[in-house]
């Protein structure tokens, strides 16, 4: 796209923001002002940018996606099929705007959970010290836009040494056509706390819209968080997401990200192990077809000694779909005795499907254990033969192996109702494939 289009597109977006009222909090106004400045000095990325070389987002500018407006007409009956039986703490956002009536917190004593404006006065100092601190936006136009528009958002604070029994379900429902929503999430796990957080993007109809989300997660010493992220947007949607995680001493972060929806999606996940003995497990599954494009960029940054990271990312691409995985692992000079593994496995189900995978290891410490591997291929002939020798037809064998390829990642989701939904989604997609 030309520079002029890119600039006018961003200007147009910013103008639509000008009408919004200023917040009462000076720090929040300053944060937005900085973000607006950043937007004005940046351009939309193109394939000439190394970080975007496989992902052309120019279709995004074809429509003037206006900011979404709150719509309070949605009733619980319209959306309760999206709720999870075993996640009784639920914050619901409709087109990025919090819905009190659709939300419910089963454990109000165990955690602080609500939307940003509601918690702003009671938790001002903690919010000020976290919001906007983990996802930088000076070189990231989408994060800058999200921050410029920052008004609403999900906030979850788990107090010290508290174990939240039920998962917290952050449900982002898209309902409108041709709008942009700017979801924002903040999870603060105080020292020794435990929580399971589900970040779930769904659509009520096959609409074209943009989701531009930012998620920030901060875990203090010995805090544990399981973060399940499900992107099941409309097949016409654009989904641009940034998530940053900061891990303190001996904290533990486990994430499973599932990408099923959107015409074009991009997920940036940055995990920083900022203190000793932090641990993370980062798993991902992309399952796409037709002409979908799904790009996942992760960066795991080991800054201190004795850290552990394990990453497994899988892509299944059918038809003319295109999956991208870029997994960077940095081990800084101080980060001795780091133990890190990364595996990228990719399955192509058609001749026109494409996968670009790029492991990137930057290791500056000498006493480390790091392994990585990447494979792109079709199903294994020996595996197919094994199943056929047990009576399964070739099609049934292929379908089962494709399902299994995806289900291995889904089986790591610790919320059974969500796991079942996703297993079914993988089953539907893999069984539709008589090869």
């Amino acid at each position, binding site marked *: 796209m030309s520079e002029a289009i890119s600039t006018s597109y961003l200007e147009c977006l910013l103008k639509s923001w000008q009408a919004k009222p200023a917040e009462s909090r000076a720090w929040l106004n300053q944060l937005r002002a900085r973000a607006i400045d950043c937007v004005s000095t940046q351009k939309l990325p193109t394939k000439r940018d190394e970080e975007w070389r496989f992902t052309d987002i120019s279709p995004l500018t074809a429509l003037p996606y206006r900011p979404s407006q709150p719509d309070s007409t949605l009733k619980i009956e319209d959306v309760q099929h999206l709720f999870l039986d075993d996640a009784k703490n639920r914050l619901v956002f409709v087109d990025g705007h919090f819905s009190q009536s659709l939300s419910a917190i089963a454990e109000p004593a165990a955690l602080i959970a609500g939307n940003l404006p509601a918690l702003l006065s009671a938790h001002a100092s903690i919010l000020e010290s976290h919001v906007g601190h983990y996802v930088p936006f000076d070189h990231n136009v989408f994060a800058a836009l999200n921050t410029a528009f920052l008004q609403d958002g999900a906030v979850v604070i788990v107090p010290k040494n508290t174990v939240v029994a039920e998962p917290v379900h952050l449900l982002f429902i898209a309902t409108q056509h041709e709008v942009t929503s700017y979801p924002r999430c903040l999870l603060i796990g105080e020292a020794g706390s435990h929580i399971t957080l589900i970040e779930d993007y769904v659509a009520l109809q096959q609409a074209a819209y943009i989701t531009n989300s930012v998620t920030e997660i901060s875990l203090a010493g010995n805090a544990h968080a399981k973060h399940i992220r499900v992107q099941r947007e409309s097949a016409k949607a654009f989904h641009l997401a940034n998530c940053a995680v900061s891990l303190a001493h001996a904290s533990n972060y486990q994430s499973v990200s599932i990408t099923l929806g959107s015409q074009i999606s991009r997920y940036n996940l940055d995990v920083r192990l900022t203190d000793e003995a932090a641990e993370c497990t980062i798993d991902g599954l992309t399952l796409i077809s037709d002409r979908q494009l799904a790009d996942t960029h992760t960066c795991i940054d080991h800054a201190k000694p004795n850290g552990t990271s394990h990453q497994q990312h899988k892509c299944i691409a059918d038809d003319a779909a295109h999956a991208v995985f870029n997994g960077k692992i940095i081990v800084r000079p101080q980060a001795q005795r780091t133990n890190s593994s990364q595996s990228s496995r990719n399955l192509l189900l058609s001749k026109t499907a494409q996968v670009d995978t790029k492991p990137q290891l930057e290791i500056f410490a000498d006493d480390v254990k790091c392994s990585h591997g990447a494979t792109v291929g079709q199903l294994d002939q020996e595996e197919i033969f094994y199943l056929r020798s047990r*009576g399964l037809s070739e099609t049934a064998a292929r379908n089962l192996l494709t399902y299994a390829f995806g289900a291995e990642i889904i089986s790591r989701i610790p919320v059974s109702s969500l796991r079942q939904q996703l297993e079914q989604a993988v089953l539907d997609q893999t069984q539709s494939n008589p090869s």
Partner: protein
Amino acid sequence: MIIANSPTILSVQGLRASINGTEILKGIDLTVRSGEIHAIMGLNGSGKSTFAKVLAGHSAYEVTGGSIQFEDKNLLELPPEERARAGLFLAFQYPIEIPGVANTQFLRLAYNTVQTQRGKEELDPLEFDDFVREKMKLLEMKPDFLDRSVNEGFSGGEKKRNEILQMALLEPRLSILDETDSGLDIDALKIVANGVNRITNKDNATILVTHYQRLLDYIVPDFVHVMQAGRIVMTGGKELALELETRGYDWITANKQPAAGVSA
């Protein structure tokens, strides 16, 4: 057991097969009748495992000559799944791991596919659970076996037991056990052998492909065949295995020089 006038299950004649243009099987003749247990022994590279895979229909091997009759069917015309449904079973030397699929799900799928083919009722998950647990007792398997992914993280012994469990479930007419004893300690070997002995009867037949005589202490064969360079070069009773154990394979080569000359 050798039974007089017992029906022939498998008849292999002059079987030749190659992989990537290299001939591995150079004319195998073998007849297996109902109730019999045959052992096929031989050194590495003699073609034993290839023979097992060709019987099961592995697509990497090209059959270039000969015939395989399985009961009333021409086996070479059937794809692997139809051979399985017709009652042929191969216990793999290296069973495949399938992360993401629960063992019970896989076992039920295989069982029901074969049952349907035989015109019998499928079992629902609950019925199957009772059925499979009964069979698992044969092999002294722990119940958590069912919930784990197929062969994933199984020890060598557990994988082989899982193979024999499938054999017990699918009730084949002919089972081919490819190096089932490899990688087993003596306790696991006894369990596996005991399982096999309880499955074999006068209406089915078994081919044991093995390196060592050790397995044959526990599953006693009616016939022992020695394979060399893609051919069965000697056939005897169970005592032949013992002789091979003490004398090795060299003396057979020496005795069989004329036969080797024919293949050249």
